[in-house]
């Protein structure tokens, strides 16, 4: 009778998936490149805030991610790049257990945040999402006032300080305060697209997360608004760890410190191909598929 999505502290099942990886039915041998046994993990991340270890994820019988291992450095910007359908958004949404909200999702492996596996039984996804905030592809302010948008997370999470002060601080951090300080009671939907996205960033940082996940945050914005968000991201990286999914390689090159390249094989299962500093990935990619992608030969 109850919903498929667990309300409380129930993690995704850890047991092995029922379906084999290469499902039967495809008679011809699949010519996809054999997945690298251990993708090259950048080893010089001494104190990772997020450590993904051998992470698999299925939507029903379809395996969306296989064997992803990645260490995200603290207070830096890590970009996930790759062609459409490579699993980068799925991976991003696994880091704050947003994927729990989709029916029939199963995960295996480990994502440790400050050493604690967030897929452990006993971990509350609600608390995970407060500590790991998210900014979405399309600005999605609530149909409420600007003030209520920013205060929402603080209110439900029992913020004990001065809410007005918190709202002001978050809006200043999101570089929106000057534009909205005189109309905090107006609907968030009255703002322009770029302002809405900065409002969503303010909403995310108002609950003092350690990490902010950004899923193609500029894909719905014009170049000027994009520029402002990118500047903002650089400033936010002083206080927060940022993981950003982007379609736009120039954006990854401009803003990120580290870049992870993902790719899906002919089985459409996403895998991590290469991970390194952004400079290294864009100047001397080690994997030829990475090179093909960043030079625009596919995707």
């Amino acid at each position, binding site marked *: 009778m109850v919903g498929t999505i667990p*309300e409380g502290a129930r993690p995704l099942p850890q047991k092995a998936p029922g379906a084999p990886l290469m499902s039967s039915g495809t008679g011809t041998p699949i010519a996809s490149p054999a997945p690298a046994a251990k993708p090259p993990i950048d080893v010089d991340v001494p104190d990772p805030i997020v450590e993904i270890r051998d992470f698999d994820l299925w939507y029903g019988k379809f395996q969306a991610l296989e064997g992803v291992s990645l260490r995200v450095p603290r207070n830096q910007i890590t970009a996930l790049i790759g062609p459409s359908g490579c699993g980068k958004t799925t991976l991003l949404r696994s880091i704050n257990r947003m994927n729990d*909200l989709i029916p029939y999702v199963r995960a295996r492996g480990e994502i440790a945040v400050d050493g604690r596996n967030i897929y452990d039984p006993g971990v509350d996804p609600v608390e995970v999402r407060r500590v790991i905030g998210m900014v979405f592809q399309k600005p999605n302010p609530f149909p409420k006032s600007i003030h209520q948008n920013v205060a929402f997370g603080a209110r439900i999470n029992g913020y004990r300080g001065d809410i007005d002060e918190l709202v002001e601080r978050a809006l200043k951090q999101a570089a929106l305060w000057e534009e909205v300080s005189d109309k905090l009671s107006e609907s968030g939907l009255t703002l322009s697209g770029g302002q809405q996205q900065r409002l969503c960033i303010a909403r*995310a940082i108002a609950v003092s997360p350690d990490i902010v996940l950004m899923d193609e945050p500029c894909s719905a914005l014009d170049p000027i608004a994009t520029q402002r968000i990118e500047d903002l991201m650089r400033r936010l990286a002083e206080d927060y760890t940022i993981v950003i999914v982007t379609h736009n390689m120039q954006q990854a090159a401009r803003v990120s410190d580290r870049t992870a390249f993902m790719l899906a094989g002919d089985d459409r299962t996403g895998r991590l191909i290469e991970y390194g500093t952004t400079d290294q990935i864009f100047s001397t990619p080690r994997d030829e598929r990475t090179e093909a992608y960043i030079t625009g030969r596919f995707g």
Partner: protein
Amino acid sequence: MAASANQVRFARNRRRHLIEQAIGGALFACASVTVVTTVGIVVILLGEGATFFQDVSVIEFLTNDRWTPLFASKNFGVLPLVSGTLLIAVGASLVALPIGTVSAVFLSEYASPHVRGVVKPVLEVLAGIPTVVYGYFALTFITPLLRDSFFPELGPFNAVSAIVVVGVMIIPMVSSLSDDAMRAVPVALREGAYGVGATRFEVVTRIVLPAALSGIVASYLLAISRAIGETMAVTIAAGATPHLTFNPLESVQTMTAYIVQVSLGDTPHGSLEYRTIFAVGATLFTMTLGMNIIARRVVGRFQETYE
């Protein structure tokens, strides 16, 4: 467009053009039937109602608190019928709005697609059962049940049994329409709330319900309007005694039940007594039409909320 270019050429073929014109005219005539229906309703209610109000003043109709047109000493105050109707409608709303709303939340927010696929149509069956069946249910099940449990003094005809069954029959209007309104709230809004650490309960109560509010309110208005116009269940269960009362344990008569009573009786057509049904019908029509128009206004606002 290619279509209009074609038509320019076909215009030279006069026969074909005439056939097309005739078909278009016939289809328009079909669509006009609905307009003629509305005009017919308005003309009949206004026309016959006007002759009624030549004999009975509007003031008396609206203010007299007794309705006894079929008795020797005649009173033409519609208030007892209106109060009976409102008693049923308000009572039924008290049953249907809470049950319908939480059912809608369940369907939209908690039920798995599989469970939803079963529960929603089953609830909608409640709206598909003929109202005469609800009348039977009220008379033979609800009234005895209430008499045996809570109200030993309850008579065979009473408002409360009609309230219960009318409430049950309008549950699906609330549950289905509110479910639609809640499901129309974009996933992105829910995710935005989950993303700052909201529980499902908080997402539902603080994001989804407020965002869907106008759709939910519209479903309430449509359901109440349906309760006002409901006829057979109240005719069978609530009785035929116009009372200006808000006591649900008494027998009351609604506007609809009165119209049925007159048409079943041997009141001569054309008499003043007979013409009361047009005055009452006009009152009923105005009330339900007003609620429906307000409901549509509310929905119209709801659709502008996003985008």
